[in-house]
């Protein structure tokens, strides 16, 4: 057994900082087969238990190894509607790969890249499995087309439901299209393709419909005869720090910056939406979102830095993202906290006052609390500041629908068993329920709600 994984080919840092093409090339067939050989086909596979949607990992790897890639794709498809996405953006090191037995003595099997290979192969070879139960005539509405909504819709369509997704933006995909950058997750060849598979299953997608404004949950039920509803509206509301100068021109949320770049394709000259071409960009925060913003800034030609108040150990972003960011020249200002943004006479950012921090006692989260070092103020030279401090659920749906309760963080309250909200027949899942989490957790919530909705409607019609 080889201790090490088959290496994954990547665009070289000096090349990729000048384009928005995907950083990782993934495996080709030969590499995938070699890597698949490293799986020892555990009888009680720990990897499966650590995958939130419980993909039968050893089975698909075996099928791949036997040259039955279609079979492998079907096996994955039983559990996941978005494998080309998950193979790219899942935090595998904490999930499937983190539990792989081979990882104890060597490197774990590269499950994510194998999953990606199988999904990409099927898309390239136009292999689509659209098996589903005959239509049962029951209408279900899904609000939001992020991973939670797409998954719920796909599962219900396979069970024979007549599913319509309502999406506020002009393009389906949620964070997959507006947040995660092209260089990690290609929009045309991956996201659009995977969504088109759902359309093949009969899922209808109506873009430009804001539930709570264009229609309401009540009107969908009363006027449009939807018998079940799933809310997967995400956690899109950005937070700001509340410091002086924060409304200056050049200060924006990571959501704004990434939306301009990804959804509106502002990095391409044939698209009309402008983006701030800051020469010196400071990104506040150190999650996945912050890394994405900092790496986007690099590609737009800026000097780019991360400002984070804790130390390297506490960085919440995936290790691979931090590694890629540093390779691409992103400067890390750790143990540093902004206190004021400096503004020029025309209202544009001209710098940012920061203080140095040190780590004190652990706080509620168990991480050591950062405390200011007195008298350590200094100025960072920058002309753009991107706030990446986290997001919370948008209150629009809950505030326009009687009976849907939320907690004090604005998250929709559900019954953990089946995903049902406090309003009967209305289910919810994903970031709208948990606050910002991950693609795969949103998908697993979508799955749970799909079976919850199925059980609810079976019961209702029995």
């Amino acid at each position, binding site marked *: 057994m080889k201790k090490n994984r088959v290496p994954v080919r990547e665009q070289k840092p000096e090349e990729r900082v000048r384009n928005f093409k995907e950083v990782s090339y993934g495996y080709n067939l030969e590499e995938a087969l070699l890597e698949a050989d490293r799986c020892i086909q555990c009888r009680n596979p720990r990897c499966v238990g650590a995958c939130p949607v419980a993909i039968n990992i050893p089975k698909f790897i075996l099928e791949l190894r036997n040259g039955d890639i279609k079979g492998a794709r079907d096996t994955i498809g039983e559990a996941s509607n978005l494998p080309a996405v998950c193979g790219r953006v899942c935090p595998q090191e904490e999930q499937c790969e983190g539990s792989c037995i081979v990882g104890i003595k060597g490197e774990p099997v590269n499950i994510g890249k194998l999953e990606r290979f199988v999904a990409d192969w099927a898309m390239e070879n136009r292999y689509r499995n659209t098996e589903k139960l005959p239509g049962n005539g029951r209408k279900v509405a899904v609000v939001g087309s992020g991973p939670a909504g797409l998954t719920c819709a796909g599962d219900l369509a396979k069970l024979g439901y007549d599913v319509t997704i309502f999406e*506020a*933006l*002009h393009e389906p995909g949620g964070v997959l299209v*507006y947040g995660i950058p092209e260089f990690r997750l290609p929009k045309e060849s991956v996201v659009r393709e995977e969504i088109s598979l759902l359309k093949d299953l009969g899922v209808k997608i109506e*873009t*430009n*419909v*804001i539930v709570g*404004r*264009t*229609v309401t949950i009540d009107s969908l039920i009363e006027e449009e005869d939807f018998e079940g509803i799933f809310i997967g509206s995400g956690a*899109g*509301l*950005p937070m*700001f720090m*509340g410091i002086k100068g*924060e*409304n200056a*021109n*050049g200060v*924006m*949320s990571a*959501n*704004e910056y990434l*939306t*301009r770049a990804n959804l*509106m*394709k502002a990095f391409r000259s*044939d*698209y*009309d*939406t*402008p*983006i*701030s*071409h800051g020469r010196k960009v400071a990104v506040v925060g150190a999650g996945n979102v912050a890394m994405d913003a900092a790496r986007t800034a690099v590609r737009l030609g800026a000097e780019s830095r991360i400002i984070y108040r804790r130390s390297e150990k506490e960085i919440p972003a995936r290790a691979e993202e931090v590694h890629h960011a540093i390779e691409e020249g992103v400067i890390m200002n750790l143990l540093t906290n902004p206190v004021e943004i400096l503004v020029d006479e*025309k*209202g544009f950012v001209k710098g940012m006052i920061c203080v140095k921090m040190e780590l004190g006692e652990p706080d509620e989260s168990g991480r050591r609390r950062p405390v200011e070092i007195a008298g350590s103020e200094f100025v960072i030279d920058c002309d753009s500041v991107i706030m990446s401090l986290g997001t919370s659920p*948008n209150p*629009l749906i809950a505030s326009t629908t009687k009976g849907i309760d939320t907690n004090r963080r604005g998250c929709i309250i559900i019954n953990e068993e089946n995903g049902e909200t406090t309003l009967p027949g209305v289910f919810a899942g994903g970031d709208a329920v948990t606050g910002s989490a991950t693609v795969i957790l949103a998908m697993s919530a979508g799955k749970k709600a799909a079976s919850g909705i199925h059980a609810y409607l079976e019961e209702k019609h029995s």
Partner: protein
Amino acid sequence: MYKITRKRELVENIFLMDIEARRVAKSALPGQFVIIKVDEWGERVPLTICDYDREEGTVTIVFQTLGASTKKLAALSEGDEIRDFVGPLGNPSEVVTDEKEHLLKKKIVFVAGGVGTAPVYPQVKMLKEKGIDVDVIIGTRSEKTLIMEEEFRKVAKNLYVCTDDGSYGFHGLVTDKLKELMEVDKKEYDLCIAIGPMIMMKFVSQLTKSYGLETIVSLNPIMVDGTGMCGACRVTVGDEVKFACVDGPEFNAHLINFDEAMRRQSMYKTAEGKKNIIMEQKSVHE
């Protein structure tokens, strides 16, 4: 896709379009806005709802051509389709949702400026339908740039047109007229609603503040999604930061930091200017 069922050039560079968008027409109310995206490459452009026909399923927009996106829209003809049309966004105007009894007790004056004249119309119309009479002041550069006078004559109790160059109506600014109405004609208003360029709203607000006249303005900051997701539209109201697309667009004028709002509006001036030049060059070469 959303079909343009009517297009008219009201005056030079100001266009009216009816656009077929059944769901939006059904739920639209005065004070709300839409976001349109002309084609695959287009920007998301916010425009106020100027009227709607629930039976026909159409929504009326009135816009002024400024940069690349509004010019692209103006280049389309009746029968053409635009890629995206979403709404209604933002909160309906308070005067249309308020109780009739409450409104009947108020003397209301609307102040409209430039292309902002159009979005005032559905509010005045709806109030008229409820039996509430209001005064309307319209400010514009000259007689040639005045829009919708006919329509307003039908729904406003008193209409005062002001032109900068004196070519028609009152010679002067809307603030001069408003002051005259209050000082000379001894009108006692309880509520002023001003919609127009940011600079006009700022000066109306300054004036009414000195008279203690409650004033509402409809803000038009730069927006991207219009759903509360990006924060591009943030404005300072009192000591709070609000997102105009979801918390507004109407706010208490006396609490707004207009200077900041005006600076933020100019954020992309240079970038957009370039786009405009590219577009003009392209059309020259076509």
